[in-house]
């Protein structure tokens, strides 16, 4: 049963991913990204990471993807140009990424990972993650919050200057 659910989520993740990379329509690519991100959230939950799965849905699908689709629609009237580079560039990129994929899969399958067996039962993680964030990882947590604030202010400033400064 777990096997079946895992395969379904892998398919939900992987198949739309090809649309993101190869589609000639940017709106299709953006909506395919939605399925990929949702599939990854499902894979997180299957790994016993319930909190991360919810965060993935709320922030990636609810925030980042909406921003991207918003950006796509804002720039729809841009000069219509081909979405991808010319053919020689694409073949070169395909060869490069194909080689890297082969190497990564080889390493992943041939390495002897010290996998825990049997796997520990998944437990609720939210409280433990909260304790870690405000304990061991307090400084990275504060730096991340500062980074978010700086990004927010910077984004507003960039857009304001370009639109208001003319």
């Amino acid at each position, binding site marked *: 049963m777990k*096997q079946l659910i*895992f395969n379904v989520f*892998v398919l939900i*993740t*992987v198949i739309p*991913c*090809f649309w*993101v*990379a190869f589609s000639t329509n*940017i709106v299709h690519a*953006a909506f395919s*990204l939605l399925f*990929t991100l949702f599939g*990854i959230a499902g*894979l*997180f939950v*299957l*790994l016993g*990471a319930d909190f*991360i799965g919810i*965060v*993935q849905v709320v922030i*990636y699908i609810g925030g*980042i993807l909406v*921003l*991207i689709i918003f*950006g796509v629609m*804002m*720039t729809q009237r*841009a000069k219509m*140009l081909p*979405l991808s*580079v010319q053919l020689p*560039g694409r073949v070169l*990129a395909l060869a*490069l990424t194909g080689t*890297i*994929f082969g190497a*990564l*899969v080889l390493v*992943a399958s041939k390495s002897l*990972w010290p*996998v*825990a067996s049997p796997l*520990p039962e998944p437990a609720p993680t939210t409280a*433990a*993650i909260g304790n*870690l964030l405000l304990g061991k*990882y307090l400084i990275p947590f504060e730096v*991340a919050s500062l*980074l*978010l604030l*700086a990004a*927010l202010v*910077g984004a507003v400033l*960039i*857009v304001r*200057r*370009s*639109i208001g400064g003319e």
Partner: protein
Amino acid sequence: MPYSLASYLTVSSLLFCLGMYTVLTRRNAIAILMGIELVLNAAALNFVAFSRFLQAVEKSAQLSGQVFTLFIIAVAAAEVAVALAIVLSLYSKMKTIDVEEFRQLHG
């Protein structure tokens, strides 16, 4: 595909490579941004998969991978906000979002 660490690593390798292909071949700035999201998600999936499958020394070490995934998601949110601000600002100046048209820093 069996439910195993190697399957998870294969899926995340595929996500990483498709993301890299997207970044390398797209000319639309927002499509490149989608490729970056795929690469970041591949890294996040690796962190969570390793934290689940590898023998943990202690309980807190097992959840460290998930905490790092939270940081990845926070950085991705910051990155996409700034990137879209830059893209929209370039669009209002140059009426295009084709990265091959952006050749000068001072416009």
